[in-house]
């Protein structure tokens, strides 16, 4: 069952795609045999994945055919909205309204700035809203920033809530709110950027990144694919850095009032 290469890409006929579901069947057989009782979730996940991707496929086909700045921006907004919602549901600790606001502002500012910086200065995309580039790159930048900021906000909030006495002990010695929370904020920042840094370390040796693999599979020269991959990694690093830096700087302030009083201690 082999297919010829059409335009640099090996096509996957529908029947062969259905064969790929063989692995889902294997998983269901294993969980049933092991009495893990998660068959419904697995079937639901596989079905959702299929439906979501089919819908996105049709949507992207339509958007790519008719590029429009308004539609591109609308999709960016929807992606940002889903990402922010996902951060709130991922974080196990309860976030205050102020912290949610800070998280949203940090996410929007950091990702949008990096995205436009990247598209205009690094890729040199013209027109800037060309969806075939804009949407996948926005997806990678937003997705990675979402993971980073989730880790950052969780650590920041948990550690401040756990250590009010330590923060106040620093204030007692004359520390500013920034100094008193520096250790917690630095660790939150580090936790947030760690997955990106680690993935850079393993890239090319332990795994081939998704975008690069996709480009190579679609017939792009590995050298060009590598250039894109390096550039996007820099973009992701920049966006995670910026979003998380804003988050810790603004997030810390939500715990103090204008008299530099630690408000959680006084509730």
């Amino acid at each position, binding site marked *: 069952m082999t297919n010829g290469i059409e335009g640099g890409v090996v096509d996957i006929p529908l029947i062969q795609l259905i064969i790929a579901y063989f692995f889902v069947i294997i998983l269901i057989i294993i969980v049933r045999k092991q009495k893990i009782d998660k068959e419904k979730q697995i079937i639901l996940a596989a079905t959702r994945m299929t439906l979501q991707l089919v819908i996105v496929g049709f949507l992207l086909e339509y958007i790519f055919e008719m590029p429009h700045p308004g539609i591109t921006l609308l999709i960016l907004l929807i992606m940002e909205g889903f990402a922010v919602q996902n951060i709130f549901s991922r974080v196990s600790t309860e976030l205050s309204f102020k912290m949610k606001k800070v998280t949203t502002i940090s996410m929007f500012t950091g990702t949008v700035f990096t995205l436009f910086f990247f598209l205009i200065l690094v890729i040199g995309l013209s027109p800037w809203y060309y969806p075939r580039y804009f949407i996948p790159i926005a997806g990678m930048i937003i997705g990675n920033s979402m993971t980073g900021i989730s880790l950052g906000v969780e650590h920041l909030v948990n550690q401040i809530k756990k250590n009010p*006495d*330590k923060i*106040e002990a620093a204030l007692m*010695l*004359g*520390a*500013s709110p920034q100094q008193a929370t520096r250790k917690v904020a630095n660790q939150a920042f580090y936790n947030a950027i760690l997955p990106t840094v680690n993935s850079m370390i393993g890239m090319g040796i332990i795994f081939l990144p998704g975008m690069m693999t996709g480009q190579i599979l679609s017939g792009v020269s590995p050298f060009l694919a590598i250039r894109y991959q390096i550039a996007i990694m820099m973009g992701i690093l920049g966006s995670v850095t910026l979003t998380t830096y804003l988050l810790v700087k603004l997030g810390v302030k939500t715990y103090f009032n204008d*008299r*530099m009083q*630690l408000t959680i201690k006084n509730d």
Partner: protein
Amino acid sequence: MFKLENIRYKDILNIDYLELGSEKITAISGPSGGGKTTLLRLLINFISPDAGEIYYKDNPLEDYSPEDIRKNIKMLGQQPIMFGETIQEEFQIALDFANISDYQVSNYKELLSIVRLDKDLSDDSSELSGGEKQRLALARLLLLKPEILLLDEPTASLDKDNQKHILDFLAEYAKTNGSKIIMVTHSPELTKEIAQDQIIIADGKVQEGAVIND
């Protein structure tokens, strides 16, 4: 130094009028949960009263910037909290918090000997006993030479001999450095020899007739 007028804070404090901090050492005592620590937290502006006014040097405390307040007034909490890994780091972090760059390592050693802490600067501060941590936290605070020291039961974890030594030293310190010390103590007996002003607070109120000025 401080004047409190009609101060209300939650159900914890209810003080109609109180002057304190004009003497070198003021001792505040009274039963647990009576509002002593809350009073110190009001004085350093960690909390603001729900009603009433606190005056510091004749001006409302809230008129001073938080930076100014915390530059002049520093506090030692009941639980000694360590920030660094070694004893030397504890001093350095405190200096960093207070934005003081002019210091000498010999000062650290001198302070350790004053608080009777026979340790090396490279020793791990997290492995000190409760009493040792309390003495180190006091030494760390003294290094900053604040105008006003608010001490919340600074000798609570110490044995009687060390309690007396630290209190005698604080009396000497206040005399020679011109600092004012306002300290909370569980027992007025402990501080009667060194405090010129003794205040008793119970149920959030200053106990009438208990303010003793020599």
